[in-house]
């Protein structure tokens, strides 16, 4: 359950990320160093740290998270195309979204926002990302 206050906090954080989406995205995707098993899904891209592919891919992901934050009550509608893509084409193990990507994104946010990433902001973002990844995985089965 997201309160109005939490939705506002999430939106504020997301809007701060928009101009640096590629950097944040690339940093979060450094999860490939932390969890090398995840690299198996990206054999078609150059995912070395700070590579062009990593930045552009990271930017796409962050901008999708930012877009969905504009109206969290419409998550299913906003993510419909991405749901299909992940379920039928990409088929990334959905458990990885939460364990790996969400956690690494939260770590990246802690590094960038430092003291601004308060416990309450962290809780709100964690709740939002949990909802986001759950909806993203809805079409898998």
């Amino acid at each position: 359950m997201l309160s109005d206050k939490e939705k506002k906090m999430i939106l504020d954080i997301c809007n701060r990320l928009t101009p640096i989406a590629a950097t944040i995205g690339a940093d979060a995707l450094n999860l490939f160093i932390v969890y090398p098993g995840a690299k198996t899904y990206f054999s078609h891209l150059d995912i070395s740290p700070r590579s062009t592919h990593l930045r552009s891919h990271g930017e796409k992901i962050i901008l999708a998270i930012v877009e969905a934050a504009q109206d969290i009550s419409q998550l299913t509608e906003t993510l419909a195309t991405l749901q299909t893509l992940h379920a039928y084409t990409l088929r990334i193990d959905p458990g990885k979204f939460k364990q790996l990507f969400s956690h690494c994104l939260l770590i990246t946010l802690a590094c960038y926002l430092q003291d601004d990433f308060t416990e309450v902001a962290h809780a709100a973002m964690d709740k939002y990302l949990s909802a986001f990844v759950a909806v993203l995985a809805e079409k898998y089965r």
Partner: protein
Amino acid sequence: MVEWSDSERNIITSIFSSLDYDDIGPKALCRCLIVYPWTQRYFGGYGNLYNATAIKSNPLIAAHGVKVLHGLDRAVKNMDDIKATYAELSVLHSEKLHVDPDNFRLLADCLAIVIAGKMGPAFTSEIQAALQKFVAVVVNALGRQYH
């Protein structure tokens, strides 16, 4: 047995030797209690946990956070046998404290986030990888004696 590279050992000892335990310990525990409120179930006797402000100004929680973080020292000093080092603590958490071992992972995640927040851009992926590996071994060791 867990294999540690020289780099991983250096990273872990370096992180812990420069940690302010009195700051990071309370912050990690408070963050866990706030972000994952169901973990408060184990802190019934700790006074006011009503909201984030109360938790952050609760001296019993702060003291406990410091204690827990110092508990990690044992693992840092015995990286080659963390399992044996924590056998007794594992029994304590299982038999006496009745803590669901999944909670260790939640606290470990919060600790990583607090350390990341403190180090900012200096918290590289290599450091994160070493820290995550370390806490995963600790979490596993603490859950070992649950039957």
